[in-house]
């Protein structure tokens, strides 16, 4: 099962909806250990993405994702802007020129996104950041594909791993970003960046599952 740029666009629209719906939730998580703007910033960024999509909707997946990255970098601000912006730009470079994405291409895009976040933010696993949700997702998706899973199944594994990774940030001591200034007080709170990463990966899994269900009917 491959996905086309049509599904990529559906994913992006859905991400915007999900981030809008979770604006207060993400912001309240950020208020506990950060500066109470993550949900607001992500919502503003994806609204800017929606405004840009019509100009690239007939282009390849790489161009679409790079456009998303540029829009996020120039509208989100904070740490989320460079991190998610770099993630989408790197994902776009991994699938440059492609109009259809095989499961391996989706994995390559997700892996490139992770590497971009690590390069930009220099966070390690366990620092209580986005990396703690995306890393297990990439690993779970890779091993699922190696074991013969299709795209929808592999993304189900990815989202389950991302969710666990997100929850695993709760007992962690933050070592990056504004939360790190709280020291021990950062313990007991779920990382907002890991949460938004989980929500974004969940959209990908939801769209892949719906596509699979449609193709069976």
């Amino acid at each position: 099962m491959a996905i086309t740029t049509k599904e990529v666009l559906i994913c992006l629209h859905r991400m915007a909806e999900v981030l809008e719906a979770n604006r207060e939730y993400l912001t309240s998580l950020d208020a506990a250990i950060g500066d109470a703007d993550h949900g607001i910033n992500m919502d503003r960024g994806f609204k800017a993405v929606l405004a840009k999509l019509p100009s690239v909707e007939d282009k390849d997946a790489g161009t679409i994702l790079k456009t998303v990255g540029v829009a996020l970098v120039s509208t989100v601000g904070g740490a989320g802007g460079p991190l998610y912006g770099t993630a989408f730009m790197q994902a776009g470079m991994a699938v440059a020129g492609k109009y259809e994405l095989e499961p391996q291409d989706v994995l390559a895009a997700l892996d490139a996104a992770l590497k971009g976040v690590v390069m930009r933010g220099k966070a390690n696993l366990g620092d209580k950041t986005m990396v703690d949700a995306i890393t297990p997702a990439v690993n779970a998706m890779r091993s699922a594909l190696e074991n013969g899973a299709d795209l929808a199944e592999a993304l189900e594994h990815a989202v389950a791993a991302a969710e666990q990774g997100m929850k695993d940030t709760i007992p962690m001591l933050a070592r990056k970003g504004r939360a790190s200034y709280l020291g021990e007080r950062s313990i007991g709170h779920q990382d907002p960046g890991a949460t938004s990463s989980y929500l974004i990966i969940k959209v990908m899994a939801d769209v892949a599952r719906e596509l699979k269900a449609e193709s069976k009917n």
Partner: protein
Amino acid sequence: MKKLINHPANVVKEELEGIALAYPDLVKVHFEPNFIYRADAPIPGKVVVISGGGSGHEPMHGGFVGGGMLDAACPGEVFTSPTPDQMLEAAKMVHGGAGVLYIVKNYTGDVMNFEMAADMARAEGIRVLNILIDDDVAVKDSLYTAGRRGTGTTVLAEKICGAAAERGYDLKRVADLCRRVNINGRSMGMALTPCTVPMAGKPTFELAEDEMEVGIGIHGEPGRERMKLKTADEITEMMALAIIEDPPYRRTVREWDEEKADWVEIELEDPPFQPGDPVLAFVNSMGGTPDIELPIVYRKLHEICTKKGLRIVRNLIGRYITSLEMQGVSITLLRMDDELIDLWDAPVKTPGLRWGM
């Protein structure tokens, strides 16, 4: 939330519209991307000094644009770093061919956005150096945190570097000067009340009537320690001693190496204060603390500095780097020398700081 605004989403835009109307002789405002820049820019052959950060710290940074200080300032959303396109377009608008210094407060978002902007500007052939300000002694540990935050020393660095650029220092000298100001400056802040980001609508943290938060940054983030409220003298003493007795602070920062044409990690160490040091003492309101309380803090700070052998050779007292309506105060001490004193005294003409012209 009670605020004198029209709509939370329009706060920054309408603030900038007002600034453009209020100070047309000093600054102009560019919208989308947003930045404030000197009305007389570009000045050929002059190094330009640009800063930026989240809004909500007024008058910093936009209020410090003008003669003898910043050439441009990039305001983000409230408490949110501005974006690379703002910083790039500001550099392109004001640079006079002699290079750009980005003064960057050490916050994860600001650092990443300014690094991306510097890379983009260099790709367009503009010489850019980034210097970090990380002066907040409330953050003890640089290994397991994002490092000390950029606070009060930022205002002093913007004044001193702006004066140096006006005098004709080249880019490397202005950058070296900025780094020198940073390692010689130390700050600490405290809050009596939290503040409310307009878009969030709720206070960023809760404080009981009899509590205060010590070691806050400038973004309404909680500090290191919550304690029972004390007197102004006790609070001042606690903060002043934390600054004066702060041991050498070592950390690694990323700077652009022009010879290697790459980002490099460099080690910096802040030397501790010594008896006999001449200092600039900066007492700053976090926004909501009224002017009547600041001299009370300065009075005690002066006493402690004298007792510790520090000579206050200059001071700055007022509201310069704020956290919206937060009540609280920050103290900054900057070790001075003849060159820094001379540059501090140089004329400055901005909406937020003005003397000598």
